[in-house]
């Protein structure tokens, strides 16, 4: 199996589509894999539900959307409730515990991305970058160097330092998670050997 699917979900304005683009660029352009990034959103500019998906594979990708995500990032309660049933049985669930108060699984990896963005970075809009850092660390789907290169190439000029800081905060938060929760069985490398 070479197909690895990531779904980033939450509400409009949380930067999930940007996060999807950065993840796809890291895996595709910097890591050299085949990638397909799709999105779904409503007519609203903010609020409403928002979803970005990244399919990563070693070979040409046929169906561009996620079929059964290996990873689900839920940045609010509604998206967590809606998409948890699509997740692979042994898939990784990462939630923003700032907004997701009722976690549907004991295996969920909860990190308060938005809270950390507010307190540690000083900008709530950086929650998506923190989440990306954590996601990459927990899943190994992209190398951290590629991710950092992709982040710095995409973000507006002048915000590189802040974004780098956000990324590092996310990586640290993921490393500090209690070990028994870190479900390594379905990380990208392991899924290739199935």
């Amino acid at each position, binding site marked *: 199996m070479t197909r690895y699917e990531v779904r980033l979900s939450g509400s409009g304005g949380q930067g999930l589509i940007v996060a999807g683009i950065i993840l796809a660029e890291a895996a*595709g352009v910097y890591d050299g894999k085949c990638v397909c*990034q799709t999105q779904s959103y409503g007519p609203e500019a903010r609020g409403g539900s928002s979803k970005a998906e990244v399919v990563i594979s070693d070979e040409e990708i*046929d*169906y561009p959307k996620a079929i059964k995500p290996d990873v689900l990032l839920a940045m609010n309660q509604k998206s967590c409730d809606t998409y948890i049933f699509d997740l692979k049985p042994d898939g990784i669930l990462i939630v923003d515990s700032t907004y997701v108060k009722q976690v549907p699984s004991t295996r969920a990896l909860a990190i308060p991305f938005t809270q950390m963005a507010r307190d540690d970075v000083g900008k709530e809009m950086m929650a998506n970058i923190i989440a990306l850092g954590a996601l990459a660390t927990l899943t190994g789907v992209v190398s951290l160097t590629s991710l950092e290169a992709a982040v710095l190439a995409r973000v507006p000029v002048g915000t590189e330092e802040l974004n780098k800081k956000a990324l590092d905060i996310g990586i640290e938060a993921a490393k500090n998670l209690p070990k028994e929760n870190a479900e390594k069985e379905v990380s990208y490398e392991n899924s290739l050997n199935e």
Partner: protein
Amino acid sequence: MATKNAGRQVLLQGNEAIVEGALAAGCRFFAGYPITPATEISEAMSYRLPGVDGTFIQMEDEIASMGAVIGASLAGVKAMTATSGPGFSLMQENLGFACVAEVPCVIVDVMRGGPSTGIPTHVSQGDVMQARWGTHGDHPIIVLAVSTTQDCFSITVKAFNLSEKYRTPVIILADEVVAHTREKIRLPHPGEIEVLDRIRPNMPPDWYIPYENNSRGVPPMSSFGEGYRYHVTGLIHDVRGFPTERPDEIVPFMNRIFRKINQHFADIQMVHEESTEDAEVLVVAYGSVSRSARRAVREARQRGVKAGLAQLITLWPFPRQTMEPLLRKVRAVLVPELNMGQMSREIKRINQGMTRIETLNRIDGTLITPAEIFARLVKL
């Protein structure tokens, strides 16, 4: 095309790849009115064109956009516009003008849910028949469908080439999924792409007969301002471009504009076949649905079902010559599409009892999944 990205791998959205394809094909004029899900084409054109000495104009509406595109093309510049269903409806009047005046141009229609303003942010394939018959009267037209970001680049180049070669509007039908899907593609160097330009007159201006017949059925086209004077009209015209009501001039004109397309079917009609050699059941799909179909066909093959895929690149003129032999040899055909059955209707029309045609339609703004096609495929 001078671009720093040539030869590099980049992550591009379908819409952005259409822009890169157009620029690579020599497009230097874009007039449009932004509309979801085609807005990114206008946006990218607005910052890419000035850098290559091109012109971008945001017009007051789609009627004017199409008018500006025709004007630019008559002045000798390769021109394009992009829109979605509601805007495409507005373009139809001038699209007919481009057909009759034989003005090369490319129109991108990124399909979204309709009718009317419909479902603006979600996918559909509801404009297949509008692309063919949206403008009134008998007219030839070329319509190409794209399914991947790489397609968006290469088919756009092809669209410009066909449009220049046959002096006809060419419509690119994209859909919300392919337009917004980002994929890694390699942008080729300018030398790697075949770019065709319209044949220009090589006789002295006094000898130029603008709509004179020839073996290809495509008269040479001069640019306005080059000294070749001629009349351009939407009325049926004689060889000099002036309106005519004489049957002995109307018939040769109409026959010629059809013949220039019909006698070049082999060049125009493109179908991508996969595993069709020994197929017993066939999926016919186009646009983003063909990606679902490809996965379903591969999965069916793994389970021992002899399935094949015919992906239509050219929708119109309908590739009958390719499809008929396929229909003749398979047990059944499934046509999945995101409308109530527009292309399946055409396939049924040419089928004439050769095989069994089944349809799979979805009109709720979501892409047909491989699982849905697979489930039908194994029961065919």
